[in-house]
C-alpha cells in the first residue's frame, strides 16, 4: 500500500473538520488509493486531461451516485432486514423514514433523496390535528438538518395541494435550514394557485423550494415516477443514477478547428469516450461491488434495472464563445441570437450522439443528458448551459434565451434566476416569471433573492453567514458549507449573486 500519508495527516489535523467529516475524508483517500477501473488508453488520456470528468466520484464505485428508494415499500411492508414492523401512526411512519434514511447510500455518504413526502405521509394523517402535524414535521425537519446536514439531500412535494405539503412549506420557511433541499412539483391541471403562491412566497423568504414542471418530467419517466434530487437531477424513482460523467465543452471546442469540425468530429469522439468512462464505472458497480445484493434490492426499495447513467455537459457558454471567436465573431452567449442558436444546435447534436450509444446495465439502455451544475473547482467555467455570471440579461430575456435547451436534458437542467430584493414586496412577479418559464419549456424554476442569507450556490443551499464564519476558520457544522466557501473563493459565484457548485470533498474542500 502506498498511502500518501501527508495528505491523510492534513485531513486528520484540519481544525475546520469534525471527527465525522474527517472519517469521511479518510475513506475517500483510502478508496482513491486503489487502482481506477480498467480504462482504454484513449479514455484514460481524456480523463487525465479533464476533457471528460468523473466528478471525482472515487476509484472503486461501491454504491450508485444517487439512490432514490421507493420509501412507500418500507411504509407499507416494513422491513425484515431492519426488523421494522409496518407503521400504523404518523409517529411510526416518520420514525421508520428516519431509520430508513440511514441505510440509503449515495456519493455524498448521505441520502440525496428523502422521498415524495406528502404522498408518503398523507395516509397516516387522518385524525392528526393541524397543530400536531406542524409540531411533528418541525421536529422531523430539524432532525434531517442536524443529523443529515447535507444540502444535496432533497425532499419532494406536490403537485396536489394537501396538508402535508402546506405544512412542510410553512416549516421550511420558518426554519430556514440548508437541509433538506426542497422541490415542489407543479402541474397546472392539479396544483392550486394557492399552493403555488405559498411555494413562491417561500422563495422570497429562503430561496426554496425549486419548482419542477411536473407534466414535462412525468412524461419523461414512467408509472413508477421520478424524483428531483441533489442539484436538480430528475431520476427514476425506485432507482437512480449509477454515475455522472461529464464533458467540458470548452476543452472539446479548443480541440476543434471550427464549428463544423466540433459538431462532426470532435464532439462525437468525446461523447464516445465519456460513455466508455461511465460504462467502466457502471461495470465495476454492477459486476464487482456487490451493491445490488443488498436488502434494498431484495426488499424492493430499489430495482437494479432503474439506474441511469447521467451524461453531463458544462461550459456551454465558453464553448460557444470560443467557436464563434474562431470564425472572427465576438459571440456573447446569452445575449446574441446567433450565439444562442449555436448553443441550441450543440444541445440537439448531443442528444443524437448520446442516443446512438447503447449502454449495459442502464435504464432504457441509454444515458440521460444532463446540464451539469458545476464543481467548486471549475474556475472560469460556467455550469451546464447557463449564462456566465455577471452577464445575465433581465430574467425574462434570460429565460427565453435558455428555454430551447430544456427539451434536451431529461435528467436535469436548471438556471438560477437571481432577482433583486425588491421582488420580496411583490411575489406575484416571481409567480409570473415561473409560469412564463414553464410556458416556454423550462423543466425547473429556481430563483435566488438577493439579500437572503440562505442562497443557492450551484444547486445546494448555503448560508452566507456560514460562509463568512467558515472563512474565519471557525469550522462549519454542515458538509456543503466547506464546498460553498471554496466555490465562492474560486469561481466568483457570489459575484453573480449566488450560484451552484457541486460537492466533491476529495477534489475540493480539503485542498
Amino acid at each position: 500500500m502506498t498511502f500518501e500519508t501527508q495528505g491523510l495527516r492534513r485531513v486528520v489535523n484540519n481544525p475546520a473538520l469534525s471527527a465525522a467529516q474527517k472519517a469521511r475524508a479518510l475513506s475517500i483517500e483510502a478508496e482513491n488509493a486503489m487502482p481506477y477501473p480498467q480504462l482504454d488508453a484513449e479514455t484514460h488520456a481524456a480523463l487525465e486531461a479533464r476533457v471528460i470528468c468523473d466528478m471525482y466520484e472515487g476509484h472503486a464505485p461501491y454504491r450508485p451516485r444517487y439512490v432514490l428508494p421507493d420509501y412507500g415499500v418500507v411504509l407499507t411492508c416494513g422491513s425484515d432486514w431492519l426488523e421494522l414492523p409496518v407503521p400504523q401512526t404518523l409517529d411510526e411512519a416518520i420514525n421508520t423514514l428516519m431509520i430508513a434514511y440511514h441505510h440509503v447510500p449515495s456519493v455524498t455518504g448521505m441520502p440525496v433523496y428523502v422521498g415524495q413526502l406528502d404522498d408518503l405521509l398523507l395516509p397516516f394523517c387522518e385524525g392528526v390535528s393541524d397543530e400536531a402535524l406542524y409540531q411533528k414535521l418541525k421536529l422531523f425537519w430539524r432532525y434531517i438538518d442536524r443529523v443529515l446536514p447535507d444540502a444535496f439531500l432533497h425532499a419532494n412535494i406536490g403537485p396536489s395541494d394537501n396538508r402535508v405539503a402546506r405544512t412542510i412549506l410553512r416549516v421550511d420557511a420558518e426554519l430556514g435550514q440548508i437541509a433538506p433541499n426542497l422541490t415542489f412539483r407543479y402541474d397546472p391541471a392539479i396544483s392550486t394557485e394557492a399552493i403555488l403562491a405559498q411555494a413562491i412566497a417561500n422563495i422570497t423568504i429562503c430561496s426554496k423550494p425549486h419548482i419542477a414542471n411536473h407534466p414535462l418530467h412525468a412524461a419523461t419517466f414512467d408509472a413508477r415516477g421520478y424524483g428531483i434530487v441533489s442539484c436538480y437531477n430528475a431520476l427514476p424513482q425506485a432507482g437512480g443514477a449509477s454515475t455522472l460523467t461529464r464533458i467540458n465543452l470548452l476543452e472539446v471546442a479548443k480541440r476543434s478547428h471550427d464549428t463544423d469540425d466540433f459538431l462532426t468530429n470532435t464532439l462525437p469522439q468525446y461523447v464516445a469516450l465519456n460513455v466508455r468512462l461511465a460504462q467502466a464505472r457502471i461495470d465495476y458497480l454492477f459486476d464487482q461491488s456487490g451493491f445490488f445484493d443488498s436488502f434494498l434490492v431484495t426488499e424492493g426499495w430499489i430495482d437494479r434495472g432503474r439506474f441511469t447513467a447521467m451524461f453531463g455537459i458544462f461550459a456551454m457558454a465558453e464553448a460557444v464563445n470560443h467557436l464563434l471567436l474562431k470564425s472572427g465573431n465576438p459571440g456573447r452567449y446569452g445575449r446574441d441570437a446567433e450565439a444562442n442558436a449555436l448553443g441550441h444546435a450543440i444541445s440537439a447534436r448531443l442528444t443524437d450522439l448520446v442516443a446512438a450509444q447503447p449502454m449495459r446495465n442502464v435504464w432504457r439502455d441509454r444515458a440521460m443528458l444532463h446540464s451539469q451544475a458545476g464543481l467548486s473547482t471549475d474556475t472560469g467555467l460556467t455550469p451546464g448551459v447557463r449564462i456566465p455570471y455577471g452577464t445575465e440579461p433581465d430574467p425574462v430575456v434570460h429565460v427565453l434565451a435558455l428555454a430551447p435547451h430544456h427539451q434536451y436534458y431529461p435528467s436535469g437542467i436548471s438556471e438560477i434566476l437571481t432577482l433583486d430584493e425588491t421582488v420580496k414586496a411583490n411575489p406575484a412577479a416571481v409567480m409570473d416569471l415561473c409560469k412564463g418559464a414553464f410556458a416556454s419549456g423550462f423543466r425547473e424554476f429556481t430563483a435566488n433573492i438577493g439579500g437572503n442569507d440562505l442562497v443557492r450556490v450551484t444547486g445546494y443551499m448555503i448560508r452566507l453567514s456560514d460562509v463568512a464564519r467558515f472563512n474565519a476558520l471557525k469550522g462549519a457544522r454542515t458538509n456543503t458549507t466547506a464546498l460553498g466557501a471554496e466555490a465562492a473563493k474560486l469561481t466568483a459565484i457570489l459575484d453573480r449573486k449566488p450560484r451552484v457548485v457541486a460537492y466533491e470533498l476529495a477534489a475540493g474542500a480539503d485542498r
Partner: protein
Amino acid sequence: MNLPQARIAKILLWSCVDGPGNRLVLFLQGCNFACAACHNPHTIGQCNDCGDCIPACPTAALSLAGGRLHFDPARCTQCDDCLAACPISANPMALPYSVADILTLLHRHRAFLSGITVSGGEPTLQTGFVTALFAAIREDPDLAGLTCFVDSNGHLGALGWQGLLSVTDGVMLDIKAFGPALHLAMTGRSNARSLASAKIAHAAGKLYELRYLIVPDQTDSPGEIARLIRFASDLGGPQRIRLNAFHHQGVRGVAADWLSAPRQAVEVVAEQLRHAGLGPVIVPAVWL
C-alpha cells in the same frame, strides 16, 4: 385608422416595482414637472436635434441626418454618456413606437406578464397613444387578463382622465408635496391638479396606489405628514400608500446635496399612517 405613436425612452420586460406582478413597463419620454429630486432626469426633455450628444458617443451610435438626430440601437452599448452630454435633460436614445409595436411585445411575452404599466417621464403627456394602446389591449382576446396601469404625477386635467380612465385598470399617483409653496419649489408646478387627479381616480375606483416621496427636512415635516393623512383619509376607505425614500441615485443638480431619507425616518412616517387607519403602507424593500 392612423394610431398615434409614442416616444419611448426605455422598455422593460421585467419589473416588480411598477404595480402588481411582473409588468412590461414603457418609460415615455418627456415630463411637465421639473423635479429637483428626479431619479431619471434624462426622461424630462424632448430632443431638439442640437447634436451636442454626438461627440459623447464612443461607438458612433448617434448622427445627424437632414437636420434630425438619428440613433442606431445596434451600435449602442448603453453606456449612457450621451445622457450626461444633453443640455436639456432629453434622451437621444428615445425611439418612436407604434401601438402595434407594443402589442407585438405583449404577445411575445404574454406568459410572463400580469400587465403593462406606462411610466416616464410623464405618460399622460402622450394620452392619445396610451388610450389607444390600452383600448387595443382590451380588444385583443390573446391579451385578456393583462391589466393596464398608469404611473403619473397627476398633472393631467379632468377631461383628459375621462377618456384614459375608461381603459385603465389602475393609477399609481405621485404626490410630491402637500403645501402649495413647497410643491412649487420642488416641481416647478402647482399641486392643485395632482390632488384633483387623485380624487378623480379614486372616485372611479382606480386609484391603485398613492405615492409620496420622503425628502428629509422638506416633505417629512409634521405639517406635511398631517396633510397627507388628512388627504388620504378624506378619500375614504382603505388606501394603499407607498412611501418612497429619497436617495441620490441618478439625481443631478441641487438635490444631489440633499440628505438621503434614512430607513428609520420613513418607518416612523409609515407607522403614523398605519396608526391613522390608512394602508396598506408600503416602504422600500431595499434601502440605499
